[in-house]
Each structure stands twice: as structure tokens, then as C-alpha cells.
């Protein structure tokens, strides 16, 4: 009875337009005030306590990393790379958009950011070669939802924090389903493209693909840092997030130069001599390989006693020099210049770039543009964390009133088994996902369904992935689907039109949900073979 009052209070306050956080928090406070004898001091201190969850501290940094990675240029590079790899199939541009969304999802944990960054470029491109606007918008709206399934994902961090499972396993568990969802969307596109006879791009050769990959590589290496760092056992997820954020800042400001004082300054100029550029490129490959080698080998050998840092550096150095020499040798062969003169001529370009970077180091870090990106990231963090903090408060109130236990007993009493239970969870989340922000909903629902799931023998990691996929679908189903709003906003189409355009592909995701729900191995195989099973006390 009392718990009914609590739930209806939340729903009423939610629908008359209170901020979600205030609505959850105020309901809990009023409930404690009128129905229990707890002191409000403990409630106030648990509001402070939200920040004490070390795992949640990963969230602001994943947000910051994606904020820096969302600056226009990265999306463009990913799309170019995607077109170079799958553009030549029928319906290739649409498939490339899905692939670009998948890659972007791996860099950012946010769906709307994916839709805006990839969508603004890809939809325009698709229309130019003759796709209908509806088709293009529907694809982007759906593919954008992969943002929360492909790691790193903020929603997964929230789930892991609220039921106390490992973030690393959750991230790994998202890999196969993420690839699968993307694959299924692409397959659906291919079928549609065959029927509708949609155009394909011409195959521009492997050189194009490699060049696209090189360009996108700096961004995509972020994934390697995050995943490698966590699975190499080197970083905690929070540390991985911080390193990812620092890496993104560095890449955006100094390597890609899409923003800040270096914007528009290219690494090599037209005026540089050919042989100087070849020498410079060769050394760049050498240095890049060395850095990549150092980081990767560090992840692999960090705990090893036999391989020291010195060993790694020497091996890396030898290989880097070989790579640089090979490149210069290959490219310089048709020029008159010797390899040495190429390398020497490349040095002034290095000098110019390094001095440029040193001089604008602090202006870039503390400049107005950086400040804006930082502020945007901070705002998103605040918005999410305020909801999560209050949802924690609410979840705390629920468990103090033993409500999860009551629901568990009731559900077991009426004879739910794992099969029917998962249907119930899916329906609950699909409905809830309509109205609530995914992380807030997870914080509330997870503690309630988690004990039941454990009782019924559902795997904790598998449950997490089911929840994330549900949140995904919630983003593209009316009335309140975030991606629908965003797509409708950037395309200027009406919401109803976007809904209709997205619907065929939502069906694909629905099929995907059923697969994920009833084939646990899809989620659990990868993390458990690498990290061993999750054990819940």
C-alpha cells in the first residue's frame, strides 16, 4: 500500500513536468518524512555519497572524451573510412553509414551525439546519390542507438555500478551483440537495396581503404586504449576513461586540429619539397608505430617479470626505424634523392610542427573553444549525475522498505520462470524506456529485478546486456524516443514521418532483442572466456 503511494507519486510528479531527479528525490524524501522514522540527515548525506562511487567517476570522462571526439572532423574521417570499406556493395552508402555509426559509437557513449555527428554528414551524402530522405533518416536513427551497446557505454557503467558487477565484463559483453546488431542492420539494408535497386559506390581500391584507415586510426585507437587498458589489467575502468579523455583532447587539439588555435594548420604544406614530405611521412610512421607499440606492449607485458620496459623500448625502436626506412625507400625510389637526404629534409617539417605545438600548447588547452567543449561535457555530466544521485536515493528508499524483496517473493510465488521473467523485464523496460532517461531508469529497475534474476539463475552480465538493448529500442519507439527527436530535429521532418521511416529497422532490432534475450552465450561467451565468470555474492 505505502509502496503504491510512492510509485504513483513518482509517476504523477514525472508527468507534470518535474525534473526527473527532483521527482525521484522529492518522492523519496516525502515518503521518508511521512511513512518512516529515518532521519533526513542520512538522506542528505547519501546525496553527497553519489560521488563516492568510484566506478561512476568514469562517466564524466567518457563524456569528455566523446565531446572532444565529436568535433566535426572525426565523424567525417570515420565516414570516409566506412565508405571505403563497404561503399561498393549495393546500398553501400547506407551500410557505410551504419558502419560509421558503429565506429563512432565505440568512441562515444552517447546515441544522440552519434546521430548528430554522423547523421548531418551521412544523410546529406545519401540524398545526393539518390536515396530517399526517409530511408536515410530511418537508418541513422536506428544505427545511432548502437552508441549505448558498443563499448565504452555510459549505460553499462551505470548498470555495473548499481548492481556491483564488473565494468570490464560488461564492456566485453557488448562487443558481440554490438557487432551483431550492426551486421543485422546492414544485412537488412542490403536486402532492401537489392529489391529497390539502390545505387552502389565504385570500389576505389585498397589504397583508398588504407588511407581512410590511417586517417581514422588516431581516433579509433581510443578504443584500443580503453579496452586494452582494462583487459590488460592495467587500468581500472575509471582510469581508462581518464586516459581516454586526455588522449581525445590531445588528438583533437594537436593531431586532427579540428579546433583550437591550430585549426586549419596542416602538418605538411604545399610548398614543402616532395622528398622532404616523404622523409617526414616516413618518420611519422616510425614515431607513430613506436608509440602504438609502447602502449600495446605495455598492456600485454605490464605484469610480466621477464620483459622489462627497456626490452620493449629497444624492440619498438628497431621495428620503428625499419618501418620508417622501408617507407622512405619505397617512396623515394622514383625520385633522384637518396634516403638520407629525404630524412634530413623531413626534419624542418618536424621542427615547424613541434614548435607550433609547443607554442600553442597552453592556448589550446585553456582556449575559449576548449572551455566550451569542457563546459558542454560538464553539463551532460551534471544532468546525468543529478538523475543518478537521486535514483540512488530512490533505490535506497525502496530497499529500506523491502520492496524489491516483496516483488521477488510475489514473482516467484506466481510461478515466473527465467523465460517468462525475461519477457516481463523486456516489457517493463520497453515501457519505462519511453519515459525515462536510460541511466536513471537502470538505477531504479536494476536493483529490483537483479535479485529476482539471480534467484531464477539468469546470468548477471546477460541481464545487463538485455537491459541495455531494451534502452536502445526505447530510444527509437514513440512517443518519447530520444533518437526520433534528434533525427526529426536535424532533418526538419515531422516526428510522425521519422517514426514511420525508422519502423522497418526497429523490427530488425526487435528480432535482435529476442535473440539477445534467449541466447545468453551471445553476451557471456566473450567476457567469460577472457576474464572468467562473474561471481555474485
Amino acid at each position, binding site marked *: 500500500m505505502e509502496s503504491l503511494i510512492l510509485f504513483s507519486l513518482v509517476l504523477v510528479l514525472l*508527468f*507534470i*513536468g*518535474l*525534473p*526527473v*531527479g*527532483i*521527482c525521484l*528525490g*522529492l518522492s523519496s524524501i516525502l515518503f*521518508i*518524512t*511521512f511513512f518512516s522514522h529515518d532521519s*533526513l*540527515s542520512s*538522506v*542528505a*548525506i547519501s546525496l*553527497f*555519497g553519489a*560521488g563516492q*562511487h568510484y566506478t561512476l567517476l568514469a562517466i*564524466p*570522462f567518457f563524456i*569528455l572524451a566523446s565531446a572532444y571526439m565529436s568535433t566535426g572532423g572525426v565523424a567525417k574521417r570515420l565516414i570516409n573510412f566506412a565508405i571505403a570499406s563497404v561503399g561498393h556493395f549495393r546500398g553501400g552508402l547506407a551500410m557505410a553509414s551504419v558502419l560509421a555509426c558503429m565506429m563512432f559509437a565505440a568512441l562515444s557513449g552517447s546515441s*544522440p*551525439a552519434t546521430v*548528430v555527428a554522423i*547523421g548531418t554528414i551521412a*544523410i546529406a551524402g545519401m*540524398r545526393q546519390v539518390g536515396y530517399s*530522405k526517409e530511408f536515410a533518416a530511418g537508418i541513422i536513427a536506428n544505427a545511432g542507438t548502437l552508441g549505448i551497446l558498443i563499448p565504452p557505454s555510459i549505460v553499462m557503467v551505470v548498470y555495473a555500478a548499481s548492481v556491483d558487477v564488473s565494468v570490464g565484463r560488461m564492456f566485453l559483453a557488448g562487443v558481440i551483440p554490438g557487432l551483431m546488431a550492426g551486421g543485422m542492420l546492414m544485412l537488412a539494408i542490403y536486402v532492401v537495396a537489392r529489391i529497390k535497386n539502390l545505387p552502389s559506390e565504385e570500389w576505389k581500391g585498397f589504397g583508398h581503404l588504407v588511407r581512410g584507415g590511417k586517417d581514422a586510426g588516431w581516433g579509433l585507437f581510443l578504443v584500443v586504449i580503453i579496452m586494452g587498458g582494462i583487459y590488460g589489467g*592495467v*587500468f581500472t575502468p575509471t*582510469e581508462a576513461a*581518464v586516459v581516454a*579523455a*586526455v588522449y581525445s583532447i590531445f588528438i583533437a587539439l594537436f593531431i586532427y586540429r579540428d579546433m583550437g588555435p591550430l585549426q586549419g594548420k596542416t602538418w605538411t604544406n604545399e610548398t614543402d619539397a616532395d622528398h622532404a614530405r616523404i622523409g617526414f611521412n616516413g618518420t611519422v610512421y616510425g614515431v607513430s608505430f613506436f608509440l602504438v607499440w609502447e602502449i600495446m606492449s*605495455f598492456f600485454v607485458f605490464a605484469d610480466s617479470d621477464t620483459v622489462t620496459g627497456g626490452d620493449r623500448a629497444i624492440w619498438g625502436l628497431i621495428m620503428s626505424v625499419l618501418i620508417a626506412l622501408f617507407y622512405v625507400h619505397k617512396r623515394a625510389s622514383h625520385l633522384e634523392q637518396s634516403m638520407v637526404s629525404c630524412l634530413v629534409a623531413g626534419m624542418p617539417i618536424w621542427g615547424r610542427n613541434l614548435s607550433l605545438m609547443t607554442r600553442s600548447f597552453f592556448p589550446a588547452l585553456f582556449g575559449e573553444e576548449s572551455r566550451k567543449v*569542457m*563546459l*558542454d*561535457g*560538464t*553539463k*551532460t*555530466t*551534471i544532468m546525468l*549525475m*543529478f*538523475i543518478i544521485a537521486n535514483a540512488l536515493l530512490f533505490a535506497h528508499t525502496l530497499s529500506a522498505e523491502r520492496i524489491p524483496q516483496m516483488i521477488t517473493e510475489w514473482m516467484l510465488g506466481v510461478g515466473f520462470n527465467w523465460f517468462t521473467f525475461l519477457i516481463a523485464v523486456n516489457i517493463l523496460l520497453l515501457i519505462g524506456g519511453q519515459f525515462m*532517461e536510460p541511466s536513471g531508469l537502470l538505477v531504479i529497475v536494476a536493483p529490483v529485478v537483479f535479485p529476482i534474476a539471480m534467484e531464477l539463475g539468469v546470468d548477471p552480465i546477460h541481464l545487463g546486456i538485455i537491459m541495455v538493448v531494451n534502452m536502445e529500442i526505447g530510444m527509437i519507439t514513440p512517443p*518519447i524516443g530520444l533518437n526520433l*527527436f*534528434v533525427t526529426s*530535429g*536535424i*532533418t*526538419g521532418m515531422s516526428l510522425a514521418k521519422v517514426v514511420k521511416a525508422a519502423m522497418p529497422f526497429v523490427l530488425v532490432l526487435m528480432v535482435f532483442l529476442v535473440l539477445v534475450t534467449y541466447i545468453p552465450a551471445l553476451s557471456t561467451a566473450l567476457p567469460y572466456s577472457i576474464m572468467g565468470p562473474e561471481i555474485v555474492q
Partner: protein
Amino acid sequence: MAYWPHLYLLFFILVLWLLEKRFPKVMERAEESLLIIVISSIMAVSFGQVIARYGFNTGWDAALEFNTVAFSWLILLGMSYGIKTGLHLGVDIVLNAVPARITKALSLFGAAAAMLYGLILLDSTWLAMLGVDVRGGAIEYWSKMFKIGIGSEELRYPEFVQELFGLRPRVHRWLVLVILPISLAMLSYRSLQAFIDIARNKRDMLISGHEAQDLVEENKNALKD
């Protein structure tokens, strides 16, 4: 229970009000900068810690506590900022469906509820005076910490501060927690401001309908024919 913390808080809000009236631009930028500084300092400390640990096998014992405390500060400082800038998420489906008059009334109710949230958590004594069986709140907890004067687990004052004021090395817990009453007072104050702005038709809503509202606004109709 003494009432001096309440007076200090009131004084703080008054000063803030005067400053914001006098230098609105500067104060806005200062508030944003404060948030950015907090998040940057967490990033700097964490990254420095990673480098120190893996590069030099050393580290700062209090790094973890510093980061989590700074994170709490960020969330608490942010909640009033979120009210001020209309950042917080809410469901706007009803607000958009009903006539403007009712939207306004509901928004006013929302602002009042946010203020209620802040005021109850700040100190529930006023509710108790109304005859509700309740006690405690942020101020009460903070006063207790202030009276006991225990230190935090790892955080220490810098040496020169210790010598200057003759303090014990560990940072007082009340100093760490002081943000709690301050931020709740700020939240109430911002909600009051929002209430007045909505009443005067200077502002439509307390909430934003979805998390990407700014993002969409920036790219609005980027692809319209």
C-alpha cells in the same frame, strides 16, 4: 541546535544575489569556470596518478579520496546550475499538450517542488514545526561534524597551512561536507529565481525535454530541403 549556520547561508545567498545583480556576466562565467576547474582537477589528479603509478611507481595516497570528494562537489554544485540553465531532464509530453496557461501553472509547481526539495533536505525543522514527525537535514549533520571536528580519511592540509593555523594534518570532515548545505541552499535559491522568472513569463519551463536539446538546436534543420 544553534541557528548560526542558517544565518550564514542566508548571508551567503544575499551576497550572491547582490553580486549577480551587479556583475551578471562575470558571475555567470565564474560559476561555469568553477565547474570546469573541479572536473579538470579530477582529470589532472587521476591522469597524474596513472602516470606516477605506472611510470614512476609512486603516487599520492589521497588521490582516490580527493577524486571522489571533488566528484561529489561537482554533482552538488551542478544541481543548482542545472536549475538555472534549464539543464535537468524531464518529461515534457504533458506540458506540451496542455494549453499555455496550464503549462505555466505546472511549471510554477515544478519550481516550487524543487525549492521544497532543497528546503526539506537543508533542514526539516520547519516541517517538524508544522507537526510532521521528522528530523534531521544537511545543516544538522554538518553542525554535528563541525562540533566533533573529525578529519577525513586521507586528505591532508598542505604543510604551510598546518603551520600557519596550527592545524592537525587531516582535512576536517566538515570542510569537505560544507558543500552540502551550501549547494542545497543554492538549489532552493535558483528554484525561487526560476519560479519568479516563470511567473513573470521570462522563462517557459524548468526542464529540458531531452538530453540533446542543445545539440539539436545547434544543428536544427541542418538537412531541411
